[in-house]
Each structure stands twice: as C-alpha cells, then as structure tokens.
C-alpha cells in the first residue's frame, strides 16, 4: 500500500527567506501524481503545486517549486521569498490508482509552517 511521510511537524522561516518542506512516499507504481496542498487558518485546502512522476522536470509555480527525486521517492517543496501569507499547514499527497479504474488521494500528516516577521 502506498504511504506518504512528512517528518517535519513544524517549521519556521524568516520573512523573505527560503524554506524547504520534506515529503517521502512509498509506491510500486511507475506513473503517478504528487501534490502539495496548503491549509491556512480558514481551513480551505488549496492546491499549491502538482508533479507527474513521468516528467523529469521539477514543477514550479511562482515562488513555489519542488525537488522531485523519483528513485529516492522524495518530493520536497521549496518556498522562496517567504511571505506572512504563506503561514499554514502544508500537506503532501499522492494520487493512488485503484483497480476500479479511478483514484484516491493519500495524505501525509502535515507540516505547520510559521513565518516570522
């Protein structure tokens, strides 16, 4: 069964600095999708970035980028030029293929990011 592990329960970063959140996963599939979601105090889960395992190139969305290491099964999120609005809970997720032909999503335990002014 697939699993997703986030080993950092909490991280802090100074405003304008860069921070990296870690995520590892376990799977026997060769093609899959990985995601980072942000959950601010409003509780609304927001997609930050996604990565298809088939693509070698690391995904980037403005100040957010990933370091995808397929062989190591590692999927870290880098936030550059951190802003106060980045403070939130961040979840790493794996889209798991099912025999029924569809998917379910497996989440890690989350990393709470604090941004210091």
């Amino acid at each position: 069964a697939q699993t997703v592990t986030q080993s950092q329960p909490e991280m802090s970063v100074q405003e304008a600095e860069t921070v990296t959140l870690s995520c590892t996963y376990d799977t026997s599939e060769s093609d899959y999708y990985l995601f980072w979601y942000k959950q601010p105090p409003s509780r609304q889960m927001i997609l930050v970035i996604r990565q298809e395992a088939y693509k070698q190139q690391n995904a980037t969305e403005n100040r957010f980028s990933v370091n995808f290491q397929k062989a190591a099964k590692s999927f870290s999120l880098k936030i550059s030029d951190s802003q106060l609005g980045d403070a939130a809970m961040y979840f790493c997720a794996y889209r798991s293929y099912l025999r029924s032909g569809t998917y379910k999503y497996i989440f890690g335990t989350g990393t709470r990011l604090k941004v210091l002014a």
Partner: protein
Amino acid sequence: DVKVTQSSRYLVKRTGEKVFLECVQDMDHENMFWYRQDPGLGLRLIYFSYDVKMKEKGDIPEGYSVSREKKERFSLILESASTNQTSMYLCASSLYFSFGTENTEAFFGQGTRLTVV
C-alpha cells in the same frame, strides 16, 4: 468558480445522536471523498464514492456510513455519535479519470468541525 460545499462549518452533537454531514459539488465530478483530519494524523480517508450509489471503504470506516443518491451530493452518517468522533471532517471531489496534467487534483470543501459531547 468550482465549488465543494459542506453544509455546516461547526456542529455540536450529543453522544448517541445520529449525525448527517452533507457535501455538494458543482463540478460534475464522479468521485467524492470523506476525510477526517486530526492533529498529528493528517487526513485519513473514511469512505469514497466513484458513482451514484457506489461506495468503497477507506482506511477508517468504522462507526461511519455514507450515502450517494445523486451525483453532486455525498453524505457522511455517524449512526451513533461518540466522543472519539470529535474531529474535523473534509469532503473532496475529483474526476473519475483525467487526461494530461490538468484536473488531476482533488477539490475540497471548507470543512466541518464536529464536536460530540
């Protein structure tokens, strides 16, 4: 703007009550999910459905049931609420199948914080 709407943001129920959590999506998604979110445990899948009247157990189905009578609506039922079901409940939806990178993610509601006393 795509939307997943949960009927309540906060709910307080008594032990032994039958509780209904409702979720509606307007994206014509085939898949709908119910997750439970607890500190340190992340999001855990309770049940999901990939079609009307179809349901599959997730990782923690005990004490819960679901109903999907219409494509846009997915209900989570606590047959006899207990204090250990006090938690945040998140509903999500996604496409059954998607081509390419777009629309591969799950879309979430704003969450229902349930307290059982």
